[in-house]
């Protein structure tokens, strides 16, 4: 329509994936619509067909180079479920080490490279300054620490998975390669140092939240459903049950991931190649849910490790449960960063981690259907494969983590756009002086 | 497409097909089939003129990329002709070729290209007739399939 103003943000930056933003404003200055246009997809669900299922864990990581480990593991779990295979316990521990290493590096990357620039350089800073490269230059201490935190996670992931980007070692029946004692010792030692950095990161996150209290508690606060994994109530990322929490904070569903199709709906918008996943029993858009760190923290009764639990209690004291503030994702992410490192330490201290009994040698492919579900840093990830009697994939359904959040992101953006364009709310927020001038 | 235009289109297709003269590249082993082809020629056996022969030392020397390249450059079919199993000058060149051929056919099929466009046959130096018959069959086979998609487009 001609009487409309259309604002296009092309591309949306500091996000891994391809997206644009379209905001339509009426002549009355009202926000008509906000679209988050995810502008590409590569059809993995189709081209997995006809391949040996045991190769899917090699192909699927390429869905996302920032979070390939969750895809590698969801994929191998789906194949194992289809074939009725149970890997030895030490292999499962290695996989948990792998996914936690990724959780650790990915959360660090997200916090420092994607999110922190807004807070450190100020949301209104110059593009040339509002990025991690500039942070490295202006705040070399923080920058160096950020790089080392990411490095620890990525190098640990590479040590277990063979490569940090597109790991290769998980195979139906276990892991192709055991973990050596030398590496165990090396990373145990480095984990101590990493704990120090992690604590500092937690402090930084808390400071940022305090400084931006107005923004956090008033801007883009959108109640939605939440989806996340837990193990007997504790926040879990490798294997557990899935919970759905209502916007009111009630646990409305607690189910085994293999039944996901009962609870998952996939809505296809006109304007995005990424579909919108929602809570099916309630319908769309009422059932829009969000996943990722804040969702996991909302649905979990507690963290799985002590230091993270302390951090969670502090957050809940200030913001309650459930937390709908989109900006609280950053805080939640850092709490998970703490849990990831604590889990890594526990796993490295477990003598099983250097066991050589990490792979079955009598795995038999068979006709079947299997669901593999893990928590990726961006949210719950489901791979669902059907195989024929030779173990060749005949059909695949994938629900990638990010798609659980697209509708929620759109909701947040709509809310934010209204606040900015209609209410000019941002002008009354008190913002701190940027740490990078 | 309406039913009428569809019918018209298939009629033109049929006509095209009738006019279509397949172009076939044949890789022939120097020690057997090339001599066989020669024999077929000198003894004036009936053989379709659609074929370009490339002489190779042994079918074992044919890299599968030669065959794919020929198709890509517009050949409608590729015929490989070598010594009978057990008769290869280099012991097992032809068996290697046979393994490659099996995999290549499977690959063509998976990619959506008629695997019959590539064919492997055995013909000794004395078997001019076998060679000639192979070529005739190949031409017929390709005539049924129609032109190579690359050529159809050019």
């Amino acid at each position, binding site marked *: 329509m001609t009487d409309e103003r259309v604002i296009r943000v092309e591309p949306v930056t500091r996000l891994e994936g391809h997206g644009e933003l379209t905001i339509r404003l009426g002549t009355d200055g009202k926000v008509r619509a906000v679209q988050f246009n995810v502008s590409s997809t590569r059809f993995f669900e189709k081209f997995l067909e006809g391949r040996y299922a045991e190769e899917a864990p090699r192909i699927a990581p390429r869905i996302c*180079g920032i979070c390939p480990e969750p895809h590698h593991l969801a994929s191998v779990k789906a194949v194992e479920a289809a074939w009725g295979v149970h890997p030895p316990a030490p292999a499962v521990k290695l996989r948990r080490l792998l996914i936690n290493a990724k959780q650790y590096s990915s959360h660090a990357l997200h916090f420092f490279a994607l999110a922190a620039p807004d807070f450190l350089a100020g949301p209104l800073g110059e593009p040339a300054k509002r990025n991690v490269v500039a942070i490295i230059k202006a705040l070399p201490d923080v920058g160096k620490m950020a790089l080392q935190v990411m490095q620890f996670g990525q190098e640990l992931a590479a040590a277990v998975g063979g490569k940090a980007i597109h790991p290769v070692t998980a195979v139906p029946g276990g892991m192709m390669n055991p973990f050596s004692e030398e590496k165990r010792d090396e990373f145990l030692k480095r984990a101590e140092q990493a704990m120090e950095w992690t604590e500092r990161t937690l402090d930084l996150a808390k400071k940022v939240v305090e400084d931006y209290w107005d923004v956090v508690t008033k801007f883009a606060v959108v109640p939605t459903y939440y989806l996340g994994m837990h193990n007997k109530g504790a926040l879990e990322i490798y294997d557990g049950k899935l919970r759905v929490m209502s916007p009111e904070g009630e646990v409305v569903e607690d189910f085994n991931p293999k039944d996901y199709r009962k609870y998952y709906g996939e809505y296809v918008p006109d304007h995005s190649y990424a579909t919108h996943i929602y809570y099916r029993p309630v319908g769309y858009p009422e059932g829009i849910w969000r996943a990722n760190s804040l969702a996991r923290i909302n649905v979990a009764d507690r963290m799985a490790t002590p230091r993270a639990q302390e951090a969670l209690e502090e957050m809940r004291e200030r913001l309650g449960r459930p937390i709908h503030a989109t900006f609280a994702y950053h805080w939640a992410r850092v709490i998970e960063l703490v849990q990831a490192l604590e889990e890594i330490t526990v796993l490295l201290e477990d003598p099983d981690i250097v066991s050589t009994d990490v792979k079955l*040698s009598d795995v038999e492919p068979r006709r079947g259907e299997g669901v593999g579900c893990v928590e990726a840093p961006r949210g719950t990830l489901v791979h669902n494969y059907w195989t024929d009697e030779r173990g060749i994939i005949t059909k695949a359904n994938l629900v990638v983590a990010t798609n659980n959040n697209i509708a929620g992101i759109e909701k947040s953006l709509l809310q934010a756009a209204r606040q900015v364009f209609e209410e000019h709310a941002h002008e009354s927020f008190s913002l701190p002086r940027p740490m990078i001038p | 497409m309406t039913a009428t235009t569809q019918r018209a289109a298939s009629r033109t297709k049929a006509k095209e097909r009738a006019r279509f003269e397949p172009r076939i590249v044949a890789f022939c082993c120097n020690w057997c089939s090339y001599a066989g082809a020669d024999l077929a020629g000198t003894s004036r056996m009936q053989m379709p003129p659609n074929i370009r022969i490339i002489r190779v030392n042994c079918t074992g020397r044919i890299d599968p990329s030669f065959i794919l390249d020929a198709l890509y450059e517009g050949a409608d079919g590729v015929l490989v002709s070598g010594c009978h199993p057990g008769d290869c000058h280099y012991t097992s060149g032809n068996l290697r070729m046979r393994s490659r051929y099996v995999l290549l056919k499977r690959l063509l099929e998976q990619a959506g290209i008629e695997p019959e466009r590539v064919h492997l046959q055995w013909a000794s130096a004395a078997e001019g007739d076998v060679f000639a018959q192979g070529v005739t069959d190949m031409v017929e086979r390709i005539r049924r399939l129609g032109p190579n998609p690359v050529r159809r487009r050019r």
Partner: protein
Amino acid sequence: MTKRAAFAQLSSCWGCDQSLVDLHLKLLDVLPELEIVYWPAVVDYKLKDLENLPDRSIHFGFVEGSCRTREDEHLLRTMRAKSKVLVAWGSCSCYGGVQGLANQWTLKELLERKFLKAETITDGRIPDENVPGFKEDIRPNPDVVPFDVLLPGCPPTSDNTAEALSALLAGQPFDLPEKTVCDQCPKVREEKHIKVVHRTHEGKVDPERCLLDQGYLCLGFATIGMCGAQCPSVNTPCKGCFGPPPGIKDHGAKIISALGAIAEMSPEELKEAFPDPLGSFYFTDYAASYLSRLVGHTKEEEQ
């Protein structure tokens, strides 16, 4: 003097980007040499900013990913116009990448599976508002615009990217090595007699011996040696993600050729062993194969 650099992402997984970030502290040496004029993952410059740069004003343009959408192709052409030296960064860019395997189907079949028939879809439709539209086929980027440097890998290792960058910064050529993954592999090799092909999950791998000798389809022999044999070093077969060494026109043809020489199996056994040669032999470079190009012509014709 700093050099202007741009990093652009077409349809991709962003792993090449992550692998650059994985230089970690070494980034502190590299970054000061560069003035970043476009890098959506990290810096907030928009497409307009890139489009507004003078032609050939970027010293090094790195292109990750391949053209799945029309928007990708626009970005690729823009990067070509603005860059002095254009680098095909990663196997997606050099060869089409893993998504090239989708060329086995028509776009219609792909769209149907994803947007109309997926098990969880409740109301299928093919999105068409404010989205760019798809290309029928994936093609290697060098088929679309000329490139100055190829840097394959899925992803290239952090060191690969650093080496290419420092060669560029020093004004030196960056040539691909002739060696293969086998040349970099620590495993002990013997004369090859493959009597049976094992699937990756089968049996137990002897960590000392060459995987191919043990019957696992390890493609190190047909794959350019740049990664340091990452996969075989952890007892996992190489899937050829870096593509073939320079001069090899078709990765699958090369693999078939070698298998013909070393497999001591009957035609039936061979057929049985490779139900998916396309996926097995062209992990990240099917779009660059003769066959994909041939079939691409047919698809265009049918359109």
